[in-house]
């Protein structure tokens, strides 16, 4: 059990992590949110639910994902030993599926017959479409029109899986707008629809629930480290948009005081250019999509359009628990630019034969900054949360290559 001084005790009964989180939703959704909380609390205590979840993670997702020593990258930087938690090897190519399995089991338990989701890069959309197909439920995915353009392969993938992909043309046509539109759908279909939120965002209980489903990443990694190296890593590094892969890796390590934890936000064209997605670096606390958290907003509380080369990080906010961990100083927030990420993408491809997604390329970019300065006895564990196949068009475009 997490004690009073634990970093793992949150959220409180009001769904808060300190001042962050909460349930800032329309009244129409409130009864549903409360039902969801009850159902989730029951599922946590239900051994058969956990057993079904674990079995699907093993046989359908392919867990546990390997812990991999990135030998050549380690030699390249000449400092700390670099390990990858290879969640890009999961079914559907990213960590997103862990959470989708958990939520669709809950949807079934609650008797919901229709699934909706938002997606940015398309990884969460693909993962949601996948589990919806697996359980035979109709599925609608909201996706910004701009994101549909830059993630065409994933759009087609979702359609192959039987999902309806609805282009969102409000606002900046990206992830936040897709989330607005998914919430509009939800409020109009409360009776039969389950909204599978893809990040540690949204109203309580989503941030805690998604974290719990994703914690399998950190739980496995922690055990793998102890088993292989007989020690914990010195440093964890993960990218953050909403922050589900990061929360999933970090959570089981939060009370390991000696483990340094670093989250890397997308600095886009640079944190001082105004074109970035660095909510912690440049945002202030505000309320969006059901929770209070750091947000990119102007003085009037209007949301500022974010920018990142990576569609999955192109979000103006961040999960509430991250905001709290930032304020508490438990997690250090750093940034990496589009250019940094592109460079890391290519380096990892050449050195390790692994095409990382542009999202974890941000984490890898930061590793490149710190690894050379660290001692060879240090161990850096990076969450390689997605594979880069979906990004080859974007990367080609930036490198001036024609496909």
């Amino acid at each position, binding site marked *: 059990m997490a004690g009073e001084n634990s970093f793992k005790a949150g959220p409180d009964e*009001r769904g808060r992590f300190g001042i962050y989180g*909460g*349930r*800032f*939703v*329309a*009244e*129409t*959704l*409130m*009864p*549903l949110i409360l039902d969801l909380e009850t159902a989730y609390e029951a599922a946590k205590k239900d051994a058969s639910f956990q057993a079904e979840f674990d079995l699907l993670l093993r046989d359908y997702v392919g867990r546990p994902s390997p812990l991999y020593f990135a030998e050549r990258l380690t030699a390249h930087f000449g400092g700390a030993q670099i390990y990858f938690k290879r969640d890009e090897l999961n079914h559907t190519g990213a960590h997103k599926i862990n959470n989708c399995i958990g939520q669709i089991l809950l949807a079934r338990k609650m008797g919901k017959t229709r699934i909706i989701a938002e997606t940015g890069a398309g990884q969460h959309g693909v993962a949601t479409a996948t589990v919806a197909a697996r359980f035979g439920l109709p599925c609608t995915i909201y996706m910004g029109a701009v994101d549909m353009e830059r993630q065409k392969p994933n759009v087609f993938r979702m359609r192959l899986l039987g999902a309806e992909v609805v282009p969102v043309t*409000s*606002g900046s046509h990206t992830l*936040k*707008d897709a989330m*607005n539109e998914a*919430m*509009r759908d939800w*409020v*109009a*279909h*409360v*009776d039969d629809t389950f909204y599978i939120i893809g990040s540690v965002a949204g109203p309580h209980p989503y941030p805690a629930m998604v974290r719990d489903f994703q914690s399998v990443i950190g739980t496995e990694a922690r055990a793998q480290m102890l088993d292989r190296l007989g020690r914990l890593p010195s440093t964890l590094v993960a990218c953050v948009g909403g922050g589900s892969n990061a929360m999933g890796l970090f959570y089981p390590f939060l009370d390991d005081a000696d483990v340094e934890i670093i989250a890397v936000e997308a600095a886009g064209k640079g944190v001082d250019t105004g074109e970035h997605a660095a909510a912690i670096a440049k945002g*202030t*606390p*505000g*309320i*969006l*999509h*059901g929770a*209070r958290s750091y*947000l990119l*907003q102007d*003085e*009037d*509380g*209007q*949301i500022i359009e974010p920018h990142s080369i990576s569609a999955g990080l192109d979000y103006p906010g961040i999960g509430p628990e991250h905001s709290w961990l930032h304020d508490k100083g438990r997690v250090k927030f750093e940034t990496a630019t589009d250019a940094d990420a592109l460079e890391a993408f290519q380096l990892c491809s050449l050195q390790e034969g692994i095409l990382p997604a542009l999202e974890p390329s941000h984490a890898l970019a930061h590793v490149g900054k710190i690894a050379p300065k660290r001692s060879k006895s240090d161990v850096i564990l990076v969450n390689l949360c997605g594979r880069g196949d979906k990004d080859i068009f974007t990367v080609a475009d930036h490198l001036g290559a024609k496909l």
Partner: protein
Amino acid sequence: MMSTRIDARFAELKAANRAGFVAFVTAADPDIETSFEIIKGLPGAGADLIELGMPFTDPMADGPAIQAASLRALKAGGSMVVTLDLVKRFRAGDDATPIILMGYYNPIYAYGVDAFVRDAAAAGVDGLIIVDLPPEEDIELCLPANQAGLNFIRLATPTTDSVRLPAVLQNTSGFLYYVAIAGITGTASADAQKLRQAVEELRKSTKLPVAVGFGIKSPENASDIAAFADAVVVGSALVQRIADHIAPDGSQNEGLVKGVLDTVVTLASAAHGARSGPGAPKE
């Protein structure tokens, strides 16, 4: 709470045995001065109460018409400061028509809750409808607003069952806003008969006036609902009239203000006439 302009207005409506008409427009839509002309004209066109939308970039509970209104307003320089200034200017010429600010919490939070309730009350705001502040978050704004003498008007919805209703009614004052459909503004219309039942059900638990909104577009809708509700709220249909008068290049056609106010006249008279004439229900 002491009696407010909202209480006084509903008392007058009750005495006259007619339903009120609540007109929603977004502050600074399509621009600050035109918006002021519209707001100023609303009482004369038949609006008994005014709901003024506070523009927000991400209006999650709103359909396309009000989303577009919000974006037009922001583009024209709309902000919380501008919204409160419009209220102040309106109040200088009308001390009786209640004004309710409607919108989302973030612009208020960014302004600062204490400063907001103080400045809103000083500007002449009477009540608040904040879509994303359910009773679970009353400590955020509802309680400070009540202390500043502002009514906090809650939405009851088709998902508000008997278990949920007491929470919704607690700390609610002025009136109760019944959301006719589970959904967003300006989309589907509800069946009047079902609505009547829902409103009658609410009346068993509250003495507050009940206003009905969401999806009310036509004089027929307004009249049907005004037969049993204490007020009908129309928003998207009015805001759409503004959009209709804007050319693709963003320029305004002549007659925008008149066009909007004429629509208010039509809808408000339908609401006002619902309980008179043959077949009107007896109180």
